[in-house]
């Protein structure tokens, strides 16, 4: 009896295994995102963003006469998961392009595999510099951490005119690369960094740092984090009586940040790529349709994933083929207006686009200013 059950189980597993291999007549785009684990919220958003793009493209007739199919895998934000996933996407699902809707760890490992197999890979929002260094098949549609950090320096020193800054840095590749970029350009804009404090991605109570920052008496605070750390941080900063401007980055870019921080969120300014008040049709369109599809307001990771899929789709269209080499060339030569700006790649696969600064007004994100300095925002060439 048990033997029969075990046999049945094995047959079941085998058929599942082969079941996933069967392909219809679609063009497959691979997508890895953290659907479970600590980063599940970003995985969910980025997946929605990607799915919206696919839906919109398919509604207009697909690409080269075929429908696009998004093959989504959960990498739990882990490199050890993204490796077999990438191999599966390439070897079994036969994706023509891979897109990462995930964090830097898994993206970095996956990029290496896609490069080796000569399949184009686009990182939607992971910021580790080494991702595009994997090779000419890897691209990134969002800002490098350093680039955004430099923009932050201009925002504080130049646009806001504040000179004495305290940095509160998230201890991971995102926070650290932002900090590096900020420090690089701080002097250029007359900024003195009084102190820098670091915190871990799991922290939600910042009592000690807040107390110390208060005693430092800065003119402005440059704090990196995600909505689930920035929300509590900003709230606690304000509650302790600190009134100076707080400047963040795209990690804050979500309605959840405002929900968590409540009134404390008012006046917070971030460097990001999604302008809520934009009259650029691509952006306004995306924001409206995302909320219709997902049921909640769009955030940066969703917009980035949307952008990446749009880029991939257009490239496949322009290449008029599913040959990865031709698609790669098409991506490299592309110029596309998306929800997060005009996408054009340099030799390394990095983009040069404007930074949208957004500010919280009356409980919502709104346009604050734009930074379009090509020298400042220039990504590395190699």
């Amino acid at each position, binding site marked *: 009896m048990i033997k029969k059950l075990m046999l049945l189980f094995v047959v079941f*597993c085998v058929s599942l295994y082969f079941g996933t291999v069967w392909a219809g007549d679609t063009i497959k785009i691979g997508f890895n995102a953290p659907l479970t684990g600590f980063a599940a919220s970003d995985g969910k958003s980025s997946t929605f963003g990607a799915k919206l793009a696919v839906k919109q493209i398919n509604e207009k007739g697909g690409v080269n006469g075929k429908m696009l199919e998004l093959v989504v895998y959960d990498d*739990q934000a882990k490199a050890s*998961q993204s490796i077999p996933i990438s191999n599966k996407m390439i070897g079994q699902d036969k994706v023509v392009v891979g897109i990462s809707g995930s964090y830097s760890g898994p993206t970095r490992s996956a990029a290496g595999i896609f490069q080796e197999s000569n399949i184009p890979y686009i990182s939607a929002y992971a910021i580790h510099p080494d991702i595009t260094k994997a090779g000419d098949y890897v691209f990134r549609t969002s800002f490098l951490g350093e680039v955004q950090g430099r923009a932050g320096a201009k925002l504080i020193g130049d646009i806001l005119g504040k000179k004495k800054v305290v940095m509160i840095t998230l201890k991971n*590749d995102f926070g650290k690369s932002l900090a590096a970029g900020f420090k690089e350009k701080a002097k250029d804009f007359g900024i003195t960094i009084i102190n820098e404090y670091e915190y871990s991605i799991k922290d939600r109570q910042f009592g000690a740092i807040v107390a110390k920052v208060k005693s430092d008496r800065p003119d402005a605070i440059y704090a990196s984090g995600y909505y689930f750390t920035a929300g509590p941080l900003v709230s606690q900063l304000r509650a302790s009586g600190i009134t100076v401007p707080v400047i963040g980055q795209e990690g804050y870019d979500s309605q959840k940040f405002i929900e968590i921080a409540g009134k404390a969120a008012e006046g917070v300014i971030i460097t990001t790529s999604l302008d809520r008040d934009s009259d650029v049709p691509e952006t306004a369109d995306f924001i409206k349709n995302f909320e219709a599809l997902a049921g909640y307001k769009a955030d940066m990771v969703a917009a980035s994933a949307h952008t990446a899929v749009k880029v991939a789709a257009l490239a496949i269209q322009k290449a008029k083929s599913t040959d990865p080499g031709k698609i790669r060339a098409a991506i490299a030569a592309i110029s596309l207006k998306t929800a997060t700006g005009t996408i054009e790649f340099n030799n390394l696969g990095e983009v040069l686009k404007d930074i949208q600064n957004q500010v919280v007004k009356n409980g919502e994100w709104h346009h604050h200013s734009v930074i379009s300095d090509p020298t400042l925002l220039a990504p590395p060439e190699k």
Partner: protein
Amino acid sequence: MGLYEISLATGVGIYIILAVSLNMITGYCGQISLGHAAFYGIGAYTVALLSKIGWPIYLTLGAGFLAAGIIGTIVGLTSLRVREDFLAIVTMGVAFLFVGIVRQQEFLGGEMGISGIPSHGMSKLAYLGLVLFFAVLSILFSWYVKRSWMGFAFDAVADDEDTAKVLGLDVKAYKLTAFAMGTAMAGLAGGLYAYYTRFIIPDTFGFIESITILSMVAVGGIGSIFGVVFATILLVLMPEFFRFINDYKLLLYGVLLFSVMRFAPEGLSGFFKLLVRRKDG
């Protein structure tokens, strides 16, 4: 064999080494280690750093093996001072300390980790062969130790430390040896992992990973080599088979862990023993 299958199998092979090595510490000597991943990490970082300055693979792997074993011995010395209940928590502390310290050191790559680890220079298939070679080696070594006089001593220590002492066994020495061997093997697994992913970050080697390895040993049946190997294969491949119920796979994992402990604490090895007995009886 496609790329996908090869990469899966390589991952399984590395985990087998990890689980078997932990089995030596926990299963043979009854010492619960919740910090095994730290030694996995020590091996990985050692190999990553040395390979980047040009050392060849056989030297780096050896270095990873030794580094983990040496630090394991030092940690093992602490385990001598505390007993059972404390040990679990102290080893948990080791897990956190490792990650906590590594992520602060720039020369270890800090948060960014170490990327661009050179290739092992072999084909993917050949590398799989190497990993499997080491996996089999660790299984054989475990089996040999179990069957030897050391194994008997370990058993005695696991069963009842005090009695073992009375019987003249140098309990401390055996515990330390088990620790040293287990952690060294974990270091080797770490080195193999570094060449496999070519990019390592501190978080990979934290407490959660330690628990993952421990659960492979527990589900397999602490002390049983065959059970542990089988459980490892099952637990590593499970996320692959269950991709279609993506959303629930961690839940399933938790339920599995819990159920095995609740209903079959001897683990899979106990389950198989039961099957065998049924057939005979």
